[in-house]
């Protein structure tokens, strides 16, 4: 076991703490510039001076944002809190498993499968960042626009594609496995099928028009979707009027983009001679850029804007007569149009290979409705889902997604900070728990061993929490390391001892805000920051209790907000199980709790910690 030294960097929030006293209380040596075996630094890595980083190169280092964990209170309390935090970090540093010296290089090339603006933009942006790109499209040509794209914008972009983009027309992606740095893709083209390796994959199939939900039973001879409308070829009869109805979300409201398209169709019709246009809608979805002005322009051009409650439009007389209740008159309004225009929306078919439940999570798990999965990201690292397939509005939003995806994949494939899970092959039972539970699809079972995609891991630690053999963990997050840290910290902590497992995306920013404001934490509280609450499995909870903790609080993100999709729910499940086990043993089930939290809810965290401290005192 390495001897640990404390490197003291003075930081805001550490004022008044004597480094010697903290080091002595924590049972570590204070660094005075000599030889060291392993160190704890009182600052995050980003705040360390380059000279220090050079000096510590190759050593086990625990970067500890100490000020965050100390908080306010009198000198004795702050000293005790600082000592517990340093002891915890020292316990881990003493055992630190350095990342493997040899890690496979991630592949740098990018596969863009699809066509249209989103696909071209992704190819362009990835190539601009130096990645060789294969643009595979099932269509005859890569520059074929999606039906909902602006053809001019697409051909302009196609003309700018650099030579590092290889075009593979009439080529379909039929199978895909892997994660960032090591995808295996089977491509079927005119020259046959072959499997290739890619570092990242972008799925951006071209959009295809469909009518967005409107009423049934309309006379097909009268109806036309917006995409087939040639307004400039329509005019009223010489001796009268032609009546057109534009159905813009009568069964259910449209998206803002579809509504704007319907408005443009109505306006184009209204500007034709002897045409009377009615626009029927349930909600005016004017949130697209210029939508409100367009809506006004329509009405000024003589379009009758008629509101129909969803589902109240009925079709009569063989689909030629529209009727709906009017709230003011108390009776039905009727309209017998000569032309019925239906709002449309583009969608793209989901690739069939994603239906393989053994290899791919369900669609909602792959593309979570989660604010942290924006910019084209999916839950599989290195896989990006763009454009119509994602449901992104045409135009600028697709270019945004492509640019964001390219920057993300570039950093993931070329960055130095991607962790590589350590698999202890000798004790691994090949039970495939890690393969099943990794939210990012990183571990794979290849030729009777577990191998990890080289650029896919985010160190959430779900594998370490779930592996029954304790055979896999991101570097620094193995059970022995975490146990050692908790053991040293809890040995120092005052009674009643409490452990807070704090997710880096929610609880730690809240801790930081509280501590910066001088919040006084209970003397016996040991904080254990984790990348994701999903790192907290049964082993860790039970170890904390075994080491004398009277209360264990696991604080993770709200449901639907986890950067690792469901690491928070997994942690909640484990705390519930631990709590039940305690109850069955006749112990206090309340001593293990889970808290859903966001980074901007520090008060909720403070309350939960205080409550747990009070409960531990009573119990």
């Amino acid at each position, binding site marked *: 076991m390495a001897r640990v030294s404390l490197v003291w960097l003075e930081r805001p929030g550490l004022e008044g703490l004597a480094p010697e006293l903290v080091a002595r209380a924590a049972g570590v040596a204070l660094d005075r510039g000599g030889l060291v075996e392993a160190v704890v630094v009182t600052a995050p890595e980003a705040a360390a001076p380059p000279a220090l980083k050079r000096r510590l190169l190759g050593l086990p280092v625990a970067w500890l944002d100490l000020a965050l964990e100390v908080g306010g209170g009198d000198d004795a309390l702050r000293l005790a809190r600082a000592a517990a935090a340093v002891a915890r970090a020292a316990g881990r540093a003493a055992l630190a498993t350095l990342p493997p010296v040899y890690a496979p290089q991630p592949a740098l090339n990018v596969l863009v499968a699809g066509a249209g603006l989103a696909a071209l933009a992704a190819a362009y942006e990835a190539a601009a960042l130096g990645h060789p790109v294969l643009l595979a499209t099932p269509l005859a040509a890569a520059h074929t626009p999606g039906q909902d794209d602006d053809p001019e914008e697409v051909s302009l972009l196609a003309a700018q594609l650099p030579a590092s983009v290889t075009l593979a027309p009439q080529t379909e992606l039929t199978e895909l496995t892997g994660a960032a740095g090591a995808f295996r893709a089977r491509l079927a083209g005119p020259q046959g099928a072959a499997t290739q390796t890619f570092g990242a994959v972008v799925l951006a199939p071209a959009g295809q028009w469909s009518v967005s939900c409107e009423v049934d039973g309309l006379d097909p001879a009268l109806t036309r979707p917006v995409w087939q409308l040639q307004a400039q070829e329509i005019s009223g009869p010489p001796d009268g009027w032609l009546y057109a109805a534009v159905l813009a979300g009568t069964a259910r409201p449209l998206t803002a983009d579809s509504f704007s398209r319907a408005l443009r169709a109505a306006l184009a019709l209204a500007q034709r001679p002897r045409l009377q246009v009615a626009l029927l809608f349930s909600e005016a*979805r004017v949130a697209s850029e210029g939508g409100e002005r367009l809506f006004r322009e329509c009405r000024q051009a003589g379009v009758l804007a008629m509101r129909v409650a969803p589902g109240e439009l009925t079709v009569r007389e063989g689909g030629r007569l529209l009727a709906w209740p009017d709230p003011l008159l108390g009776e039905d309004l009727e309209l017998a149009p000569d032309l019925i225009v239906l709002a449309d929306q583009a969608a793209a078919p989901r690739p069939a290979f994603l239906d393989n439940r053994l290899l791919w999570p369900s669609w909602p798990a792959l593309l979570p*409705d989660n604010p942290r999965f924006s910019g084209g990201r999916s839950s599989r690292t290195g896989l990006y889902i763009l454009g119509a397939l994602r449901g992104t509005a045409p135009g600028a939003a697709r270019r945004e*997604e492509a640019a964001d995806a390219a920057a*993300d994949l570039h950093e993931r494939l070329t960055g130095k900070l991607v962790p590589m899970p350590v698999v202890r092959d000798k004790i691994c039972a090949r039970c495939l728990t890690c393969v099943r539970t990794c939210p990012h699809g990183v571990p794979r079972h290849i030729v009777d061993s577990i191998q990890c995609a080289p650029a896919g891991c985010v160190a959430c630690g779900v594998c370490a929490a779930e592996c029954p053999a304790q055979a896999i963990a991101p570097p620094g997050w193995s059970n022995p390391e975490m146990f050692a840290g908790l053991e040293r910290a809890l040995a120092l902590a005052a009674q009643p001892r409490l452990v807070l497992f704090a997710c880096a995306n929610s609880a730690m920013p809240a801790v930081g805000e509280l501590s910066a404001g001088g919040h006084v934490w209970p003397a016996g509280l040991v904080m254990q920051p984790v990348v994701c609450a999903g790192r907290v499995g049964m082993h860790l909870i039970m170890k904390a209790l075994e080491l004398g903790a009277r209360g264990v609080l696991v604080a993770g993100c709200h449901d*639907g907000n986890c950067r690792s999709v469901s690491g928070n729910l997994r942690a909640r499940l484990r705390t519930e199980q631990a709590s039940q086990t305690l109850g069955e043993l006749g112990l206090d089930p309340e001593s293990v709790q889970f808290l859903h939290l*966001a980074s*901007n809810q520090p008060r909720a965290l403070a309350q939960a910690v205080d409550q747990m401290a009070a409960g531990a005192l009573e119990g």
Partner: protein
Amino acid sequence: MEISSSLSDTPQSTPVLILGGGVAGLAAAVDLSRRGLSCVLAEREPVLGGRARDFCCKAVAACARCGACRLADLLAEASVRPQITIYTSALATTAQPRDRGWQVELAPAGPAQPAAAGPGAPLPGRLSLAAQAVILAVGQQPFDPAQKSSLGYGRVPGVISALELEARLALGAWENEPPPAKLAFIQCVGSRDQALGRLWCSRVCCGYALRLARLLKAGRPEMDIAFFHMDVQDYGRAWEEELAELRQELRFLRAMPGEVALGATGPEVVFALADGAQRREAFDLVVLSQGLGPPAGAAALAQMFGLARIVDGFLGQPQAPVAAGAPGVYVAGACRGPRSLAESIDHAGLAAAAAAAHVAQEAGRG
């Protein structure tokens, strides 16, 4: 963190200068560093985060997808990236086009400030910076509801703005005192309003107001909440299912109240529904859902960089998603037009890509 106390160790030039340290500016900075480019970010206020700091988390049983948590993510990301230099309390005063870019003068905004927690340090003094590209990410100005005086803001007690409600909730409002029994949201305050010359939908107000309503209702199911609106805008991928539930929980009233008057017990909302009859209803609290407008400094910035503004006073050019209208100048986030936090972050990524392409192109010019 080492705080540079003199100008000797401050950069004199940077590939990209970002004005504004809200979510868009931070996202642009992070995105540039992903692309291997360094940048200088200048924020006018002493703290980073912009408007996003004012929003509370709206999760009830699950995340409400408001995106407010993304600010902490971005601050954490910006703080670990050495390519990003951040100055707070820094104001751009002049900008001159120069060979391959801009010469921008930064000056301390207001009196010297102590360093706030998190990344960045106050601008130590005046700084003249050569930048190859500039990203304007100066955010938006929430509509001041006092300008629509008929709705009683500042005049009738019990009428507050949505931002004030956010702040109260973030501070734990009504935890120790009885909550209002009857509450009304009035939508489109400063949006879709011809009389005010604000002919745009602010995109985000339906989403934030309905999320706030749901948050209030969750803890206090007996609360009576009315939602006065013209149209309910699309506010997320699962909006239709959420709306169906919300219609059971809240009173959706399709009416734009003409007046909020001082009644015997509190504010009274005067409105007419589709049948045309005028109604008057008393509430304990009326929340005005203020819209988003062009940032206060938009005109000055446009003049500084020689930009024409798009029709509603926002920065940028019609038909161009991020080009601002001068060489090497780009816009990111809600200063380009109303955007949610998540949309601003995505938009900033495109602005960063465009700025990076500009820098690369200039470098290629040799």
